[in-house]
């Protein structure tokens, strides 16, 4: 039930992010979500797209430093506390969250999803399923 996220290592310099997103657009890489983490020197652009393997291949051919990481997504119910409920389940299962970010679906009007990158994907997915929380699959969002 993992989703494959493509990460790109870029310099934290003016124009690098613009160049990267332009490359994605020029190559018709259809993005569903994009998030950026940065430090003083570098940035990591993380994207969820339709054909991650193909996107990674294109990026590598263009000399981008890139890798594919397994993440998972959960659809958030439109009610208070739904995010903290997920986080509590993960914490109780001993899973630590490296990072998380949100995106809105364009496929299913009005739905919000959270992407999670954790230290143990399988344990996290199992713990959430045990508590009746549905894990979003790649095809649910495209």
């Amino acid at each position, binding site marked *: 039930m993992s989703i494959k*996220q493509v*990460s790109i*290592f*870029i*310099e934290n310099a003016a124009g690098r992010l613009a160049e990267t997103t332009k490359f994605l657009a020029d190559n018709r890489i259809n993005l569903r979500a994009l998030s950026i*983490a*940065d*430090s003083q*020197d*570098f940035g*990591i652009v*993380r994207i969820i797209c339709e054909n991650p393997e193909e996107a990674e291949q294109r990026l*590598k051919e263009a*000399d*981008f*430093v*890139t*890798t594919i*990481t397994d993440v998972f997504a959960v659809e958030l119910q439109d009610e208070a506390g739904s995010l903290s409920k997920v986080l509590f389940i993960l914490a109780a299962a001993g899973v630590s969250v*490296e*990072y998380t970010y949100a995106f809105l679906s364009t496929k299913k009007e009005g739905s919000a999803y959270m992407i999670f*990158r954790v230290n143990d994907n399988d344990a996290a997915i199992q713990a959430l399923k045990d508590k009746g929380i549905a894990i979003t699959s790649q095809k649910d969002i495209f």
Partner: protein
Amino acid sequence: MANYYQPEIECASEEQRKAMQDERLASQVKHVYENVEYYRKLMDEKGVKPEDVQTTADLYKLPFISKADLREAYPYGLLATPIEECVEIHSTSGTTGKRVVAFYTKEDVDLWHECCARAIVAAGGTKEDICQIAYGYGLFTGGAGLDGGSHKLGCLTLPMSSGNTERQIQFMQDLKSTILCCTPSYAAYIGETLRDMGLTPDDISLKAGIFGAEPWTEEMRKDIEKNLGIKAYDIYGLTESSGPGVAFECSAQKGMHINEDHFIAEIINPETGEVLSDGEKGELVFTSLTKKAFPLLRYRTRDICVLNREKCSCGRTFVRMTKPMGRSDDMMIIRGVNVFPSQIETVLLEQGYPPHYRIEVDRVNNSDTLDVYVELSSNMFSDTVKDIAKKEKDLAGAIKTMLGISPKVHLVPAKTIERSEGKAVRVVDKRKLHD
């Protein structure tokens, strides 16, 4: 197992060695002063007469000579014997400037080959061995030197020269050569080709290799040893002072023994010219004791290394030199410590990074800063900030262990550090802007 070619010389006592060096030095200085106008002028300028140099303790009185002198005196300005006594020349490749040409009398060639024979014996060679010489032949000293050494020892010598790798392997299989002599990069390439041809070290009979003429790392040594099924030995030399065989590695593989009956080695501070003691790191300087046609006194090699006079387990008493750690031209002094880009490059290769880097030195609040920019490629990239920060920290720690000072490491995406034609501009010293 002790393998010596000339044990009485290679294992001479300190007194014997000193007596031999003193006698040879005094007569060499006289020979050079009387026969080389260029040298006579340098010595006169310094106010040194041949009679002032009677023992090795007087060596410091002599002027240094450098590659610039060799270029200036090109082609015949440093020749110390009549041309009719010379039988051979060799020449540097000229990649770093004008060519240097060195001359040899028959006796010079003979003694040089003897030095190379010592190296082959130290690598376990005997007259029963079959030496495959895959160094280039011609102006380059590699082919001629090891070929001559192999003949001296009485080995069957295969004068392959470099290149045509499948033919090299064919000869290895058919003639069962036991010792390979070539550059380390070519040895690595032969190893890869062997594998690509679907062969293993069991399909050839090599037992040892003697590799030199370019810098190589311990990692390369391990790879070559594994891929060819041999023990790999280092050899050092420079065209200016004869060629390979100035120093050679023994079975202990803890530094290269310098042939001290033919060369006196000194280590100097490259900035001041001051002579340093054994164990200190500095520029290697050679004085040739026996060469007649092209004798160099106190020749600055630009190679940075350390001399070690501790007793070697092989029994040889010749002083040992470390593999050159860098070139004195590239030396930076950061927080009072001598730093060479090649040291940083060694750490990068050991840690699995590509050798593409940029070093920036600056001065902030009267203190030197060292920033090292290193390329990170996709195979080492994992997608959290924390992982990359850890990689930077680990690499900085490894560099600190090597240099003794802490750098700040910045990982940058692969292929973003500028490549330039020929030699890369790897060091940016911004301190000069403040002076």
